[in-house]
């Protein structure tokens, strides 16, 4: 790999052990795909986990080189977990861990947004710019909807990019690697009227078929709401590892199906109809019991319109006793929701709205009264929560809120 003088000095340890370890990891990472250089990252985002590894990689790093926000779980999780009713023994030390993370990272320049939706709070890479983010949903959204360029960088990859301000020039950073490889044609489905859970179920089906390949989708209406696209794209790297999904007529690199495919034939063409939608639903709606103890929204964290929808559905209603309804968002969006009166409506109905936390792995077993049954409109949360053994109902905002009010799922 060809390194600039600055990069060589980092590699030789002139900037200290943290920069040296970080650039060595990026070079190893780049060599897997024969990258010939490292390029500047315009937008970084990363998590502060990794335990001892984090301390090692930050050794001697005074200031990180990329503009970097932090992922969900860095600030606010302790308060959120407390509000959600996590038992005292599981909360112990949580506040201190957060304080340590902040004390370590804020002086180095990490911006503690604590969100999985950096694009909702001002860290928004535009078309053609390079980003290095963890969070498979943010990655597929930034590549596909915004036309920015980034790979499926794992947590440690985005951390070393944040430190060095660099990433290997490979895979989805290159125009020729961004074209679609598998074509999905939506037929016989009323996409205008399908809800966000339907979009999620189709996305989940598509991810499993596409695996690591770039996707092109035909048949989604041009005026589709951003929130539905978020529900549609997020599950694709859950059932699969998709990081680029062109939607013909909607996303910037897909004015036509031919352009999205780079004027090549797709490896395969798959029809999406009622049968595929049903199959997607069935792999997510895995509950065996009708009881619902927890309803969770916000994987990825909710946007202001989604919170508005929850508030409208809960207005004047009461959540059944014994049921927890949790809505998760970013702190900045929460402030807006408060101003709009949404927070008050949700709280009056008995719901909880939390910030800064990831609710994908909801702590069912750690609650004061441990729970085993849940409902969500997030395909991603449904998939991961079911894999950890929870009885999961999957459905729309309406279905889930109905279950919260009744205390059980109505089929």
């Amino acid at each position, binding site marked *: 790999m060809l390194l600039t003088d600055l990069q060589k000095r980092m590699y030789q340890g002139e900037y200290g052990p943290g920069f040296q370890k970080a650039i060595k990891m990026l070079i190893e*990472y780049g060599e897997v795909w024969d990258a010939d250089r490292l390029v500047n990252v315009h937008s970084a985002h990363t998590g502060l986990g990794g335990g001892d590894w984090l301390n090692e990689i930050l050794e001697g790093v005074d200031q990180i080189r990329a503009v970097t926000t932090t992922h969900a779980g860095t600030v606010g999780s302790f308060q959120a977990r407390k509000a959600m009713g996590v038992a005292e023994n599981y909360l112990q030390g949580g506040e201190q861990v957060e304080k340590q993370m902040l004390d370590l990272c804020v002086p180095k320049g990490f911006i503690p947004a604590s969100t999985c939706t950096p694009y909702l709070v001002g860290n928004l890479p535009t078309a053609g710019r390079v980003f290095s983010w963890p969070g498979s949903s943010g990655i597929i959204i930034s590549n596909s909807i915004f036309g920015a360029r980034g790979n499926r960088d794992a*947590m440690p*990859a*985005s951390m070393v990019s944040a430190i060095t301000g660099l990433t290997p020039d490979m895979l989805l950073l290159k125009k020729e690697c961004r074209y679609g490889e598998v074509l999905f044609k939506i037929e016989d489905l009323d996409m205008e009227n399908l809800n966000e859970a339907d979009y999620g179920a189709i996305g989940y089906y598509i991810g499993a078929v596409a695996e690591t390949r770039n996707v092109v989708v035909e048949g989604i209406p041009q005026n589709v709401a951003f929130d539905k696209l978020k529900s549609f794209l997020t599950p694709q790297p859950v059932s*699969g*590892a998709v990081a680029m999904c062109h939607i013909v007529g909607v996303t910037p690199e897909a004015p036509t199906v031919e352009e999205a495919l780079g004027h090549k034939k797709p490896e395969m063409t798959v029809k999406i109809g009622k049968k595929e939608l049903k199959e997607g639903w069935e792999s997510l709606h895995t509950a065996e019991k009708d009881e619902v103890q927890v309803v969770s929204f916000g994987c990825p964290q909710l946007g202001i319109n989604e919170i508005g929808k929850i508030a409208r559905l809960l207005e004047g209603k009461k959540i059944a006793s014994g049921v927890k309804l949790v809505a998760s968002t970013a702190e900045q969006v929460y402030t807006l929701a408060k101003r709009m009166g949404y927070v008050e409506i949700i709280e009056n109905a008995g719901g909880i709205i939390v910030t800064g936390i990831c609710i994908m792995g909801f702590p069912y077993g750690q609650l004061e009264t441990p729970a085993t049954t849940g409902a969500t409109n997030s395909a991603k949360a449904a998939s*991961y929560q079911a*894999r950890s053994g929870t009885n999961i109902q999957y459905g729309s905002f309406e279905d889930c809120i109905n279950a919260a009010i009744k205390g059980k799922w109505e089929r």
Partner: protein
Amino acid sequence: MILHGKTVKKGQVEGEAIVSQLPFSYLGDLNPEKGTVAPKGHDLEGQSIAGKIFVFPTGKGSTVGPYVANMAKKLGNTPSGMICVDVEPVMAMVAIMNDIPMVHRLDQNPLEVISTGDYIKMDATRGVVEVINK
């Protein structure tokens, strides 16, 4: 049988193979406290991948995977080596961060020519995999 592939993470390792036909995510698919494969219906459900040479098609799922693998590694619950058909970036970082020797893009499909229980000698630095059938 000798297979040739491309390095993901350098290192030499040998051990027993365990083969899955499914893309893998360290978040969700591995129980890091036990080293076993968690989900119901997975083709390795309940089986341990710890200390073995794990052979599978590719990675998938959450980008937190390398941190989950890091937790598992501290408990001795990660594979000692990995072989993929074609790796994707999250799985590559699992190997790089946690120093697990790994190769991909072999000259034959490892899912077809390696079986669970085969003995593997792998030089990931050179990209050479020796398969000794059980």
